[in-house]
């Protein structure tokens, strides 16, 4: 049990996809403008991650190594398309806000990376835990970025105004460079924090 927890925690702190591995940043930059979008993106990525890791791990013993990458891509894109279609049908406003970045989960190297580096070499249980940890780690960080960007960029949180009306919106936070600034600050904080605890 303690072992499983350490695999889960690995995705959140030790190898956090955004702050430590720094992969899958493209969608983070584009989507993290509003907290609502961040939560939905996090949920979508976590779903694709957990499902594709499960399947990859289940079939890992009979996938020929020469064609493993195409097989992983087919599996990942299948789950991504499922998410995309379901969102278009039942969450149209979110689906519109995120536009092309939902289909682009297919090429998110974070999911491919975990399939190749972990799920294809470990039993199903561990793979699910690892994928969950990575997904939760991704969601937490992207939401933390979205919180700062929405607050400074629009003066709102979850579309509810929190600043007085004459607050001047910080436009740079709404544009992709804003995400870089916030990510940079978070990485610095995480490094400082983890160095001290050693």
């Amino acid at each position, binding site marked *: 049990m303690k072992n499983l927890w350490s695999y889960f925690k690995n995705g959140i702190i030790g190898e956090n996809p955004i702050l430590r591995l720094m992969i899958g940043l493209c969608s983070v930059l584009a989507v993290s403008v509003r907290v609502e979008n961040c939560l939905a993106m996090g949920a979508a990525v976590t779903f694709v991650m957990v499902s594709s890791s499960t399947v990859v791990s289940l079939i890992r013993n009979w996938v020929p190594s020469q064609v493993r990458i195409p097989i992983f891509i087919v599996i990942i894109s299948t789950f991504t*398309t499922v998410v995309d279609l379901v969102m*278009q049908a039942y969450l149209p406003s979110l689906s519109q806000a995120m536009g092309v970045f939902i289909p682009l989960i297919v090429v998110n190297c974070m999911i491919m990376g975990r399939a190749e580096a972990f799920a294809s070499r470990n039993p199903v249980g561990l793979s699910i835990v690892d994928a969950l940890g990575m997904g939760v780690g991704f969601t937490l960080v992207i939401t933390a970025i979205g919180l700062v960007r929405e607050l400074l960029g629009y003066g709102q949180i979850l579309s509810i105004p929190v600043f007085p009306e004459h607050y001047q919106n910080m436009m740079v936070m709404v*544009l992709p460079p804003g995400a870089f600034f916030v990510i940079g600050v978070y990485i610095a904080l995480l490094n400082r924090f983890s160095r001290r605890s050693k």
Partner: protein
Amino acid sequence: MKKILQTALILGLVCVVAAFSLALVNQLTQAEIERRAREELELALKQVFPQAEEFKEVEPEGLNLPWERENFSLLQIFVVQAAGERVGFVFEATSTGYGGPIRLLIGISSRENELVGIQILDHQETPGLGSNITSPDFIGQFYSKSLTDPFTIGEDIEAIAGATISSQAVTRACREVVSYLEEVENL
């Protein structure tokens, strides 16, 4: 040889399973997606032409759709009916902005010869600058404009500061729709 066949077979099998599951999900969601799209269009049409009772899609003769112009294309035309009479048209068009095509609806009353409504459906303009084309301050300038107006930035339309290209795209769409109306004979 045997190995190649086996490899291909496994890859093929994975693809077949994936294709089948996607077909299934598509079947489950397709109706809902189409219903939402129709509803959305209906709502947008109503907003562009509030006094309308019915919208009917038409295929004009002579000037076929899509009608292409530089950085502009006219996609669909709806005839607007109210109290059994034809009162105007709604045009669906795209006009090239700063970040790609801007898709919009333009409502024109054929009785008063004026633009009665305009609605941006889709755009990828810069947040905070070009995205202001949807703000009432900008879009409101077009309401109740006569079709004989020039529809030109700097003359009768004021551009958004820092977003001239986006403003131009919307203005161009109106101008092109008016010129289409002038050219087409029996609509």
